[in-house]
């Protein structure tokens, strides 16, 4: 397990270093620091990918079955999407949100017991990695749209109240934040949809039914409807700006509950324990 914990540490340290680079770069107005942060994040996701690879071979299956692994995988998806987004929009300020969030996820992951759960044979299917990859990438996209939404509200508040604090200089224009919010939404929604569909097919193979109103499924569907409404509002009614930002923040709260709350509070067959061979 030596190489695993080493890779895990390298990843966490990269995210820590990148967080510092982004935050100090933003607050101290040193644009070259976030530039470096990008490369540090790249090191982070590469080392984390190797971490997954090692786990995959040692567990003999997709290594996203415990909370420890899930949180880490979430962090990975988040940084991957952020780096792609950064290529397109060059909004390093988002890094000051994404990198610390990934760091928190890694810390959360480290605090959870690291157990390698053996999947019960019924659950072993190629659909499992497909399902979780779509679902987690979708979640990560929504997390970024949440971040952009929060920044939008802060910037909007300052522009409206005409009281400007230091952050004002650091945040990009309302238009760009709105665009990021929309891009993340339009990327996240199809991913989430595919995640739900692939999950349904997998359920059909495992249990012979596509949908069984397990709490996670119910909440995921509810969240999906929320995001569908938001996307619809943006595309047809012309929702944008503040309204869209608030909506994406609320929807993300539901998403968080679907992701964590359901597992920790409500139970059902999506809980990590139920994956295990009994």
């Amino acid at each position: 397990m030596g190489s695993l914990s080493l890779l895990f540490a390298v990843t966490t340290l990269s995210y820590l270093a990148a967080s510092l680079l982004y935050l100090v770069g933003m607050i101290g107005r040193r644009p070259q620091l976030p530039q470096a942060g990008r490369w540090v994040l790249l090191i982070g996701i590469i080392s984390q990918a190797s971490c997954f690879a090692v786990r995959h071979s040692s567990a003999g299956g997709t290594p996203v079955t415990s909370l420890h692994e899930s949180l880490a995988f979430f962090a990975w998806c988040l940084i991957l999407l952020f780096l792609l987004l950064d290529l397109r929009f060059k909004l390093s300020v988002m890094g000051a949100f994404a990198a610390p969030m990934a760091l928190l996820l890694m810390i959360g992951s480290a605090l959870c017991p690291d157990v390698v759960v053996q999947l019960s044979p019924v659950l072993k299917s190629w659909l499992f990695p497909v399902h979780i990859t779509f679902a987690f990438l979708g979640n990560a996209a929504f997390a970024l749209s949440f971040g952009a939404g929060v920044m939008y509200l802060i910037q909007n508040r300052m522009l409206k109240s005409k009281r400007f604090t230091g952050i004002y200089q650091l945040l990009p224009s309302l238009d760009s934040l709105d665009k990021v919010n929309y891009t993340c939404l339009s990327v996240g929604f199809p991913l989430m949809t595919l995640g739900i569909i692939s999950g349904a097919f997998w359920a059909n193979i495992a249990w012979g039914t596509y949908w069984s109103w397990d709490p996670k499924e119910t909440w995921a569907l509810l969240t999906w409807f929320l995001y569908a409404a938001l996307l619809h509002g943006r595309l047809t009614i012309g929702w944008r700006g503040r309204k869209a930002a608030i909506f994406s923040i609320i929807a993300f709260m539901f998403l968080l509950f679907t992701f964590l709350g359901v597992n920790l509070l409500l139970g059902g067959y999506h809980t990590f324990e139920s994956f295990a061979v009994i």
Partner: protein
Amino acid sequence: MNIIVVGLSHKTAPVEIREKVAFPPTEMEAPLMKMLALPAISEGMIVSTCNRVELYAVSRQPEAAILELKSFLADFHALPEAVLNEHLYDRSGDDAIHHVLRVASSLDSMVIGEPQILGQIKTAYGYACEFKTTGTILNRFMHKAFSVAKRIRTETAIASSAVSVSFAAVELARKIFDSLENKTVMLVGAGEMCELAAKHFVNQGVSKVLVTNRTFSRAEKLAAEFNGTAVNFDNFREQLHRVDILLSSTGAPDYILSAGKLKEVCKMRRFKPMFLIDIAVPRDIDPAANKLDCVYLYDVDDLQGVVQANLKERHKEAEKAELIIKGEVAQFRNWLDTLQIKPTIVALRRQMEQIRQVEMERTLANLNHLNDKERKAIEAMSAAIVNKILHQPTQKLKQVNQNDDGTLYLDAVRTLFDLPAQDVTHSDATDSE
């Protein structure tokens, strides 16, 4: 060697005095030559702007130099010395270095962080170079000043925010819109501030300008100026849905745009944000419009507020800049200290002696068969070679040091032999502009 500053600025002299001592840029040769001819001055340059007139000089006798420069300034402009002296300040040594670095970095300017002063000093230095009144020390000093100014500009936010109302408007627009390139600006009414702001917007790439005025001919005239379109005042409201940025300054006694009308416009624009700048007093646009999600309404007080906040921010950044300058003063002072004859010769001798000893040890280690006498002979020979080689340069250095260009040789020796300064890091070789 000492840096000397004698001069006056907006802080010490009213404009009536400043205009009398200003040096016209087309006639710099005479004053520069006269200044250099002063007995205590070995290098000199003159900075003359509308806010300050300063003489920078290098001298071995700072007290004498200051007196000479003061009477030079009075004589040249035919002013009574007693009157002028009231407004003059003088600095020498570290204080002078500190002062010039602050001026070049725009910390001493009327509007802190304004960018012109650096260019003005560069121009002044250009004249001095043209008439060859600067030497080793001022050359190095000016390049230091330019690099410090540049450093402060990049490392602090001293010049990053707008300090005029019209620029503040452009800056705000940049925080609302992604780019200004495909945006439409509308001017309602005419007013100097509005036109100025519109000009800034056009310079920043705004593509379309609409102008409306109660007097249509005036609208047409202004529109022609911006390559825009004149709109009839009676139906300018029908055009509003096309407008992203609106600048209003009519003389109307009441609101010409109600919040209700703007709400309709928002809907037509599918809630794309609108930036409204109301410079009119009494105001043209119902302030309640700011409550609409897609409207960002600023009146003249709001913009003043932004400017005040930016100024405050600049002053905060100036504190950071002062720290940078403190370090740079010490660094330049160290370099200046190395340009003294005695320490330079000592350092040169020490370096040669070190080389000699190292080489002696290396050679003797392989010559074990030599007896003490032979060893001593070789040792004496090596010492003699070093002495002979150093004799001529040492004499020459002492000789040229009597002249003004002695520092040039000292600097050359320091550079050629890479002599370290005592107790300090000698890192000045890199600061070229």
